[in-house]
């Protein structure tokens, strides 16, 4: 693959050099005698501009209306006369004694000297725009994978409200997933949720439900990585959040999509970093850390790389994997190396960090809003509460961190969809069903399904969570087949620690621009939503 790219770039550059480096020679001529000038220019369709260099150093620049009076030996025409220091002496009709002229000079007009360069830039811009439009209309073909769910009107793939079963890339890896939808106050009993397939994938969706937990004014409901629900008081942001780059508390105090992230270690993709959080002393019997987070593009890159290494044997590899479904833990090596966002609490009595657990969700699109309850009460904490996060460098984007007092466990009402409508991008709903997944939904690229749910009580407010179950099959790209490298695949699966070191340089090339610019610049994120182009 690399050879092809190098060859392609070389050929393109060669073509551009050939087309753009044309020099202009022989466009300027001089004549010491007027007869030679007349002879050379008499058959020209358009007279060239004429410069008459006079013996005293003056110059007369005549437009294309000049003529030579051979009887009286005058050169006559409209133009400008300059002295030897090029101060303008005369403008308008000039009559010049031919005997005073040292040299006549003509210049052939250069026709479209920038034509080739403008053409080359236009072709390049055209190709770039075609690819950009393709990526905007098929964002996940370019940017990511797995089904995306939208609750609100913002249908930008990078701010989807949930991603379903991101790790389930084969039938044997089928799983279910619960994602908080982080919804505002419910004002309508009917809740509609859109599910899109924006990738080159086949999604097999076996279930979609809403878990609705009633909440009161001033309360929030959070779920844990173990999918337990807790009723909490409004969370408190950290006083400080010390990371490698300094205090990043300002980035973490609000769930505003302004995220804290770091770039990967250039020598090792699995190297770790720490964030030390400090909270005001809290007299809380039970509390936990609330986090809003998602991944960078690192896991997408690694998944696509794995498919590429499989090359034309991807089908065989997956078939083998399905046959030996019990051994699927072999695929978890990279996951283990990258690790969770580990959470530690500072024990003020023993002066030690005590591990509380961790967060992990795959996917760069939707934010995951979760709670990790601490293992011990904070009621006897007199000093600032300190929490340490240990996380893989360049893997996580954290939008929000806060301390939440836990009121108690909560029960969710499970709500199946009342109606499912199917349509394609830009089309009206064509089919409807509400058979509650007697058969899986097969969602193909471009498919959209709208799920309508009815809340049990129209006067109550609910915290909503999305439950989805299924798996997806990534479509092989022809460019990936050329990257086949079973040796690298074996290293990725068998010795992930070594692989993550080897791959660091290649990933950094991708990450440097992609991560920092794509996510962090003020580019209007709406450009990536394919609804926005309409």
């Amino acid at each position, binding site marked *: 693959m690399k050879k092809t790219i190098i060859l392609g770039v070389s050929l393109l550059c060669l073509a551009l050099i050939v087309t753009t480096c044309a020099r202009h020679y022989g466009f300027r001529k001089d004549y010491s005698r007027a007869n030679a000038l007349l002879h050379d220019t008499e058959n020209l369709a358009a007279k060239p501009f004429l410069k008459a260099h006079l013996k005293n150093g003056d110059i007369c620049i005549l437009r294309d209306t000049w003529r030579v009076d051979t009887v009286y030996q005058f050169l006559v025409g409209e133009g400008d006369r300059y002295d030897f220091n090029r101060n303008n002496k005369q403008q308008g009709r000039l009559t010049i004694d031919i005997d005073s002229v040292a040299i006549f000079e003509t210049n052939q007009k250069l026709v479209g000297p*920038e034509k080739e360069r403008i053409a080359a830039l236009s072709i390049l811009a055209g190709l770039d725009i075609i690819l*950009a439009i393709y990526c905007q209309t098929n964002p996940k073909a370019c940017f990511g994978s797995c089904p995306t769910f939208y609750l609100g009107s913002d249908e930008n793939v990078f701010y989807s409200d949930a991603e379903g079963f991101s790790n389930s890339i084969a039938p044997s890896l089928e799983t279910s997933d619960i994602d908080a939808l982080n919804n505002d106050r419910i004002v309508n009993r009917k809740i509609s949720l859109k599910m899109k397939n924006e990738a080159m994938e086949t999604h097999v969706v076996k279930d979609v439900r809403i878990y609705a937990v009633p909440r009161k004014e001033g309360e929030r409901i959070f779920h844990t990585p173990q999918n337990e629900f807790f009723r909490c008081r409004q969370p408190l942001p950290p006083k400080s959040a010390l990371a490698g780059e300094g205090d990043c508390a300002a980035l973490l105090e609000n769930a505003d999509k302004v995220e804290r992230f770091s770039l990967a270690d250039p020598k090792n993709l699995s190297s770790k970093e720490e964030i030390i959080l400090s909270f005001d002393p809290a007299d809380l019997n039970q509390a936990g850390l609330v986090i809003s987070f998602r991944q960078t593009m690192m896991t997408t890159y690694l998944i696509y790389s794995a498919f590429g290494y499989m090359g034309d044997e991807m089908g065989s590899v997956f078939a083998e994997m399905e046959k030996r479904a019990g051994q699927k833990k072999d695929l978890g090596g990279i996951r283990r190396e990258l690790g969770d966002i580990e959470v530690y609490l500072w024990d003020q009595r023993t002066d030690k960090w005590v591990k509380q657990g961790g967060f992990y969700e795959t996917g760069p699109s939707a934010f995951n809003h979760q709670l990790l309850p601490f293992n011990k009460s904070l009621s006897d904490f007199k000093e600032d509460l300190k929490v340490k996060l240990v996380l893989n460098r360049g893997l996580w984007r954290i939008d929000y961190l806060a301390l939440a007092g836990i009121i108690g466990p909560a029960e969710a009402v499970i709500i199946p969809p009342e109606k499912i409508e199917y349509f394609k991008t830009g089309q009206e709903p064509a089919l409807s069903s509400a058979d509650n997944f007697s058969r899986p939904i097969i969602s193909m690229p471009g498919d959209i399904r709208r799920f309508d749910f009815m809340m049990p009580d129209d006067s109550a407010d609910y915290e909503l969570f999305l439950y989805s179950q299924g798996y997806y099959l990534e479509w092989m790209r022809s460019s990936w087949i050329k990257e086949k490298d079973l040796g690298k695949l074996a290293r990725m699966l068998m010795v992930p620690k070594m692989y993550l070191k080897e791959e660091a340089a290649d990933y950094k090339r*991708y990450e440097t621009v992609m991560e920092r610019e794509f996510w962090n610049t003020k580019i209007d994120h709406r450009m990536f939503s394919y609804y926005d182009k309409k």
Partner: protein
Amino acid sequence: MIKNNTLWAALILAALAASCVAPVSYLPEQEMIGEESYGSYIEISTYSGKIYAGELIAVGDSALVVREEFGSRSHCLLSPLTDIKSFSIRYANGKNYGWAVPLYTLGSISHGLFLVFTAPINLIATTVIAVEASQAYEMDSRVMTFEELKLFARFPQGLPEGITLDMIK
């Protein structure tokens, strides 16, 4: 937080390289070639290790005259032809396409994962175009003789009689 930014360094260097040729005030834009009254801009490298640059005033049989500018002041100097190792002239200001380098390269961001392929292509292609454009109206001693060089002087006929070097501004 941000380290090892090779692509950024390449991008900045390429943009600088592409736009490092400053325009010369007395040279015409490419549309006005043939209507200028001044000589071309010349850079001369001599065997004695000196480098001159300025407006080409005249080319004589044994020496050429160059007007060097220092801010608002200028002076003419003679450079013997036998001492000239090489020269290059610019007879018009090239179009500046330096803007295209960051624009196209950063535009690759919209290509998602394909960026790894399109960013280097855009970077290299636009840099080549910008550098070539900045040098499009240049010639050097490899392709022209002193006789041909005369045509690009302010006085292609040679230094006019009665005009001394210190009179030329």
